[in-house]
């Protein structure tokens, strides 16, 4: 690209973190200064201005994918280093057991390369991961790949449903509150949002458990009932959904408030814009003005917070999984942590990072795809 690129890239990299960080307070900072927003979009827009859309999109995707590789290498390297700093490993507990000879332990250690320095272990680990083998869980005595993938899927499902619930509730509520600004609807919504921002995940999850136990409408924890294997496929699915609902709602609740406030703020900003005034002046109906003119522009900035909300969601899922006994990555991490199953801990951390990085990537794609200021260039 020609000369202006350096300036543009700088603006985008300076603006993007500001954007992210403001959102990190779950939308408490509604008023991101409009200049930063515009700079941000101009920067993104110029990425695509010289070539045709498909080629530009492809370079964008490739760039982002390439960007992920050093990130994942860095994260896995850091986790490995941290694991090697940990006092003791799985075998230091085994060596207390008089029934296991020191030779056996030495043999096992050698088998898992635990007698080598951490960077050698890391080298072996990367070699295995590249061939699709995530190592061996010493505590569960099974290959870690199947274990992790099952748990990863559960965490993904939980986060995904929480995301859907949060957005499906927050967006309409945010619109409603913005349209009826300063009415009782608005005040109630902002009150609930404030409470929602402050209520800790732990308390909410405990209350949900208590609710499940007291009413008996929902199962208390876990992902399937004991009779799961005897059920027909339809019943199995229903059983699974019934277990999923409560954790997903708890997880969504913490996310919901932030999105709602953000949506309200954005829509209020756009409703003040000149093109909205112009649309009103032309005599368009209120509904048409809001849904056709204001809303589509107001929703765009929300896509940038999608990535961030995912980070909060995955971290929140960690604690919700542990309280509500949902067999996801977070729960596995704690189990592996207590048993010093070091490879599994590393795998979990890396997998959670992969989920987050891929989620951010999807958010960027959505943004590039949805913003006409990018497409029309």
């Amino acid at each position: 690209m020609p000369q202006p690129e350096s300036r543009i890239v700088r603006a985008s990299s300076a603006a993007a973190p500001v954007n992210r960080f403001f959102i990190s307070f779950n939308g408490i900072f509604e008023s991101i200064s409009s200049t930063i927003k515009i700079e941000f979009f101009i920067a993104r827009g110029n990425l695509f201005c010289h070539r045709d859309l498909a080629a530009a999109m492809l370079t964008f995707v490739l760039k982002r994918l390439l960007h992920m590789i050093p990130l994942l290498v860095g994260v896995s390297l850091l986790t490995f280093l941290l694991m090697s700093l940990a006092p003791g490993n799985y075998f230091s507990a085994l060596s207390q057991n008089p029934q296991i000879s020191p030779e056996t332990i030495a043999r096992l250690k050698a088998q898992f390369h635990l007698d080598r320095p951490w960077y050698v272990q890391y080298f072996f680990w990367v070699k295995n991961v590249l061939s699709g083998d995530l190592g061996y869980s010493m505590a569960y005595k099974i290959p870690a790949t199947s274990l992790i993938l099952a748990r990863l899927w559960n965490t993904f499902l939980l986060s995904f449903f929480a995301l859907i619930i949060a957005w499906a509730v927050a967006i309409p509520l945010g619109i409603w509150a913005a349209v009826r600004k300063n009415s009782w609807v608005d005040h109630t919504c902002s009150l609930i949002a404030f409470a929602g921002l402050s209520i800790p995940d732990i308390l909410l999850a405990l209350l949900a458990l208590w609710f499940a136990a007291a009413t008996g409408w929902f199962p208390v924890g876990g992902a399937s009932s004991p009779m799961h294997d005897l059920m027909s496929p339809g019943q199995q699915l229903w059983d699974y959904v019934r277990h999923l609902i409560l954790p997903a709602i708890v997880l969504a609740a913490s996310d919901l408030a932030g999105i709602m406030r953000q949506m309200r703020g954005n829509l209020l900003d756009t409703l003040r814009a000149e093109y909205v005034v112009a649309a009103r002046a032309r005599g368009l109906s209120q509904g048409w003005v809001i849904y056709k003119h204001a809303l589509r522009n107001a929703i765009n900035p929300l896509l940038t917070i999608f990535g961030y909300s995912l980070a909060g969601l995955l971290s929140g899922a960690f604690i919700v999984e542990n309280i509500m006994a949902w067999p996801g990555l977070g729960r596995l991490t704690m189990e592996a942590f207590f048993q010093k199953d070091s490879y599994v801990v590393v795998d979990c951390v890396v997998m959670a990072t992969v989920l987050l990085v891929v989620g951010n990537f999807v958010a960027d794609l959505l943004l590039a795809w949805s913003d006409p200021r990018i497409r029309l260039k």
Partner: protein
Amino acid sequence: MLGGGLLLFLYALAIFAGFISPYDYVRQDHDRFFHPPTWPKISGFHVAIPRYEHLPGDCVYRRDPGDSVPLHFFVHGDAYRLLGLIPFSIHLFGTGNDNYPVYLLGTDQYGRDILSRLLYGSEISLSIGIIGIVISFTLGLLIGGISGYFGGPTDNVIMRWCELIMSVPTLYMVIALRNTFPANISSAQVYGIIIIIYSFIRWAGMARVIRGMTLSLCEQPFVLAARAMGQSHLKIIVRHILPNTFSYVIVAATLSVPYYILGEVDLSYLGVGIQEPSASWGLMLNAAQNTEYMKNYPWLLAPGVAIFITVLAFNFLGDGLRDAADTKA
């Protein structure tokens, strides 16, 4: 304002925890496990504490309003250290009679007074946020300022490092870091470790924002003037650039305190934070994990309510400060 007042009140409670709490936080009442919250009997200006009769069976109690003793103020009780220094044994209120205990929030599974443990626990929860914020924000301000001011490879290295830290979901990172310390260590050590871990993670986000602000501030005439006058780089960053970010930093700091409080709660709840018999809000919630307990003895959830109120107060204060600082809104 409401948030600020509430916080002052909470901090006052935490500072005088020993004086206000009627009992010591490790004192066990072996006759009264899961004692329900005591309802005082009020007649005119007198407050009386009724006796709770232990019915046969598992931890079921019956209030006996006829049999009561008056509540006294400034009574002698368990020894403690006022402000952590002065040995003292006078408590704000109590009955001074072990047969008529005052358990305003009930007792837990070991027969310990929940109100007292809550107050002692608030010492940890309320101080951990302040100390953590001071450390992580100092780091974030300095590193972000340096990164934005010098630019080039320094900036690149620091920002990649920030991205690395921020791309791991917080709790996974916390557990990976926690793993580098021994599992069973004293509560005081864990307290320090929690601050170190969360500071290590949270400076990154701060540094990125400060870097962005520094980038734009560097172009300002006053920075150019300071440079032309030959001031040292560090002085320009600390004296000229960073003070311009303070209105943002103070708001962000207030809103970040809850992350530390919740961080301690999460870790203690998961069993890798503060250990028994110390009192901490997360640890106390751990007892409520058992659904049987929670169903029959809902007062075990009191620490959850305390967390909620504290976080709410910080959010209120932060919101108010932001409105005051942001003239645009």
